[in-house]
């Protein structure tokens, strides 16, 4: 822990800190470009010069390249240092174009700031400027190479940090081009990070092109709602339109980066079909009338059938505050305890994990620091992309990664992958503990023994599981394995707040029980809050919902259930209201509301013009946060303090009220919680000659919110069924052929894709929204028949 003095201020920093970081800790701002906390120091830009006056290092040095040592006395204001900085900026500006007014970076451009901070004001170079022809980099990123100052941040982010190999730096001397071999879409699912890391306007967000300046945008730190990892994001809106999402910083979860689903999947909030007014039986109405109507209809049901005839379905998309009020509401009125996830498998998985994770919980930062990772049923790039980046950082630090999965899991780093059948995951987990793998073939045994041996040797091992494939049994086994191996555990869950719902569910019912009760007529009124049982629920949901007397839906998106609701109450989308999510490692992460809901100005008409009538009512501003609707029904004050106060009486949520959006969050306290009782899965009667079909999540097109985003349309994969070449050969199917897939409920035509790295004998399909595939349960085997040819039966 060396102590050094910078500009007469002393600071003690951890070993290995460089002087630039030490200065930043002191609040001293030194211009720099190539240094980035996540990327490290490389000494390329030569801007962070400081004068080392006394101590082990002397003279003018680049602060990022010098490790802090005891007794250093450093001046950042030394005239020589200032002179050099102004020169470096002058050199960088030699070729920089005169286009700040038409550059999207203008106003939030580090080069603008550093040019001023570096003291370069007058251009002395009167020669001609270098120019470039730009490349089309696909739907997300616009390139303007003339603006490049060659800080190398983009290539270090794209290649080194994110593991992409289709973007880099070409040429030499002052003829450096940062781009692709040929124009085309950036292949990395993390390509949008170029926008954040580029200190000037070389890479800008194509979906945000020319929309708004930084000073006009309404932003608030938030939590990404598109998977369970809880990455910090900063959504920004103007004129009631969510216009962009950029990465926030949370050193425990996402670090500095986010995935493209997170960044470009924001279109759901501006969706044109979004219903922004309460309605009863399809007729728009006012909040007052809708709530009166709701109370009346609900009262009627309760009077007639008793309070237990009312069932509530919450959602992992809802904030913790909403979920907590939901539970209070049911308690106060004696309704059935709420359900927080209609997908039974995901629900039980989350509850088992939340009940048992405890000290085994690991953050993504800890995964990046691990020396041995074993992944079971987890496909990070599709299910939770930032996890793949954490794993890559671990590998870069020498970690060994073993992956057991039926799918052809692609990772942006080296890993040993063993394709196993989904049902082999459980014996593999148990085997890792006992180091016995009798049920596997000899070759696989050797592989697994190697993994077990490395796991035993590791100092900071972590078991990474995919909740969808593991299911409740697998998750339970993995929990036990982590405890007995003294390893960390990280399991991805279904939604951004699955963990919160699980903590609040306690030993409540599950969706099978609920649907059963509804089918038997015990339930007459169903209240869905941001939940869509007709899509996500068990197959019998449709029949069960058909028997109801009252279906109430509160949601911000239009889905099957919302369309058939008796009463529909519009809620705010995640960036429109504050709340808290608990991510899959049990970290409570509050988020702020970036803007108030309303119909985007762009959609109001008059040729894009804002209307010439002035009013203090926001068009389409009716949506309310789900928690606020509940608070109104409960006649509670409309503020978070009382909700948080109520929650904190539960020891899990200790400290919740002290958290603020944009922070690192805080892990829930490990207090005893009962996992749901074990439940045997219904055995499926597999018809003769059927094949097992595994429906899984994809990076784009399967997550309910982002799949509504027009920006992602160009990258949504085709509807396809993946199968091993040997399986394909057995069925006489070749790659790219149209096949017909028939399940108990669905019949669809899709393309066959052979995939040599997946397990033979299995079919894998993405649960693409807007196709019949979205109705198939995720992570579970569905028996199906596959035939050549696509002629309709």
């Amino acid at each position, binding site marked *: 822990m060396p102590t050094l003095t910078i500009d007469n201020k002393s600071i003690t920093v951890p070993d290995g800190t460089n002087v630039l970081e030490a200065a930043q800790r002191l609040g001293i701002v030194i211009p720099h470009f190539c240094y980035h906390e996540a990327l490290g120091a490389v000494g390329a830009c030569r801007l962070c010069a400081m004068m080392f006056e006394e101590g082990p290092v002397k003279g003018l040095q680049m602060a990022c390249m010098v490790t802090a040592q005891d007794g250093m006395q450093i001046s950042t204001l030394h005239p020589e240092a200032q002179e050099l900085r102004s020169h470096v900026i002058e050199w960088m500006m030699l070729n920089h174009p005169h286009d700040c007014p038409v550059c999207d970076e203008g106003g939030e451009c580090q080069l603008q700031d550093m040019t001023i901070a570096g003291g370069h004001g007058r251009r002395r170079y009167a020669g001609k400027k270098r120019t470039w022809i730009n490349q089309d980099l696909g739907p997300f990123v616009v390139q303007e190479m003339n603006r490049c100052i060659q800080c190398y941040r983009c290539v270090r982010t794209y290649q080194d940090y994110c593991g992409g190999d*289709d973007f*880099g730096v070409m*040429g030499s001397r002052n003829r450096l081009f940062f781009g692709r*071999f*040929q124009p085309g879409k950036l292949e990395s699912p993390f390509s949008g990070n170029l926008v954040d890391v580029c200190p000037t306007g070389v890479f800008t967000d194509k979906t945000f092109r020319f929309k708004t300046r930084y000073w006009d945008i309404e932003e608030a730190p938030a939590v990404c709602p598109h998977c369970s990892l809880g990455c910090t994001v900063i959504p920004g809106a103007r004129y009631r339109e969510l216009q962009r999402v950029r990465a926030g910083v949370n050193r425990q979860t996402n670090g500095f980066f986010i995935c493209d689903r997170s960044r470009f999947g924001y279109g759901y909030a501006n969706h044109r079909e979004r219903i922004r007014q309460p309605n009863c039986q399809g007729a728009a109405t006012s909040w007052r009338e809708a709530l009166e109507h709701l109370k009346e209809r609900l009262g009627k049901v309760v009077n007639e059938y008793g309070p237990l005839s009312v069932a509530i379905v919450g959602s992992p998309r809802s904030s913790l505050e909403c979920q907590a009020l939901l539970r209070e509401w049911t308690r106060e009125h004696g309704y059935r305890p709420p359900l927080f996830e209609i997908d039974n498998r995901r629900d039980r998985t989350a509850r088992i994990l939340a009940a048992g994770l405890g000290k085994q919980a690991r953050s993504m930062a800890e995964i990046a620091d691990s020396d041995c990772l074993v992944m079971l049923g987890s496909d990070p790039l599709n299910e939770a992309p930032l996890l793949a980046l954490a794993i890559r950082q671990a590998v870069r630090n020498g970690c060994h990664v073993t992956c057991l999965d039926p799918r052809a899991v692609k990772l942006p780093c080296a890993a040993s992958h063993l394709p196993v059948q989904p049902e082999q995951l459980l014996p593999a987990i148990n085997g890792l503990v006992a180091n016995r793998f009798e049920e596997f073939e000899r070759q696989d045994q050797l592989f697994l023994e190697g993994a077990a041996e490395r796991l035993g040797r590791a100092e900071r091992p972590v078991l990474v599981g995919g909740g969808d494939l593991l299911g409740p049994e697998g998750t339970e086994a993995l929990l036990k394995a982590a405890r007995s191996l003294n390893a960390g555990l990280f399991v991805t869950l279904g939604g951004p707040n699955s963990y919160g719902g699980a903590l609040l569910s306690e030993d409540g019912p599950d969706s099978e029980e609920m649907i059963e009760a509804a089918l038997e007529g015990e339930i007459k009124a169903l209240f869905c809050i941001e939940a869509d049982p007709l899509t996500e629920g068990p197959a019998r949901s449709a029949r069960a919902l058909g028997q109801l007397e009252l279906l109430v839906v509160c949601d911000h998106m239009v889905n099957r259930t919302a369309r058939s609701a008796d009463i529909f109450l519009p809620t705010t989308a995640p960036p429109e209201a504050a709340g808290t999510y608990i991510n899959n490692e049990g970290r409570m992460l509050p988020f702020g509301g970036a803007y108030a809901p309303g119909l985007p100005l762009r959609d109001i008409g008059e040729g894009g013009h804002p209307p010439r009538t002035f009013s203090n009512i926001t068009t389409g501003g009716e949506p309310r946060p789900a928690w606020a609707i509940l608070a109104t029904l409960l006649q509670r004050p409309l503020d978070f303090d009382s909700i948080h106060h109520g929650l904190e009486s539960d020891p899990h949520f200790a400290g919740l009220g002290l958290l603020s959006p944009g922070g690192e969050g805080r892990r829930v306290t490990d207090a005893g919680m009962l996992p749901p009782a074990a439940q045997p899965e219904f055995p499926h009667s597999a018809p003769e000659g059927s094949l097992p079909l595994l429906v899984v999540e994809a990076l784009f097109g399967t997550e309910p919110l982002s799949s509504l985003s027009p920006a992602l349309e160009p990258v949504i994969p085709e509807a396809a069924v993946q199968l091993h070449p040997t399986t394909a050969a057995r069925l006489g199917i070749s790659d790219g052929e149209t096949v017909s897939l028939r399940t108990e409920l669905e019949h669809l035509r899709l393309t066959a894709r052979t995939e040599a790295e997946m397990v033979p004998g299995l079919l894998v399909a993405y649960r693409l929204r807007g196709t019949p595939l979205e109705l198939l349960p995720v992570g579970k085997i569905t028996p199906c028949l596959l035939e050549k040819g696509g002629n309709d039966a």
Partner: protein
Amino acid sequence: METVNQTTGKDVLLPDDTIEAFRAKAADTPHPRELIVDLLRAIQDHHGWVPDAGIELAAQTLGLSPLQLEEIATFYDKIYRQPVGRKVIHLCDSICCWTTGGEQVAELLRDKLGIGFGETTPDGVFTLLPTCCLGACGDAPAMMIGLTTYGRLTAEKIDTILREIRQQID
């Protein structure tokens, strides 16, 4: 040297056995990247220059992405990423040749070939490029044609060299 495949009529970037040899070497070494410069030079030796397809072939042979090859290919000035004539003239423009009349030699060559630096003669025989010091400072002014260095250039000497090369090619 076969440069056009007789059956497909397409340019042959590198004979199959050479590709196989590189592939085998790449499989044998823990870091196939070390073969990048050798492979690019091999393609260039065979094909005259490295077209995009050459970059792709090299990438595929070494198990790398085309971009990874392009990053290297565009760094070096002696890997030609654009078509060149059958002989590339590298005329030294560094200090020793400059002191001994390099600029006049450049003028002379431009006149004789009728092309500027970076250009190829219409008959596709010569491409004229400047280069940094050739390590022939004692024999300045100097140029390198292909991999052969010629020093103490005079108008007559240049004439003879160009004539001989044209004769060889014909």
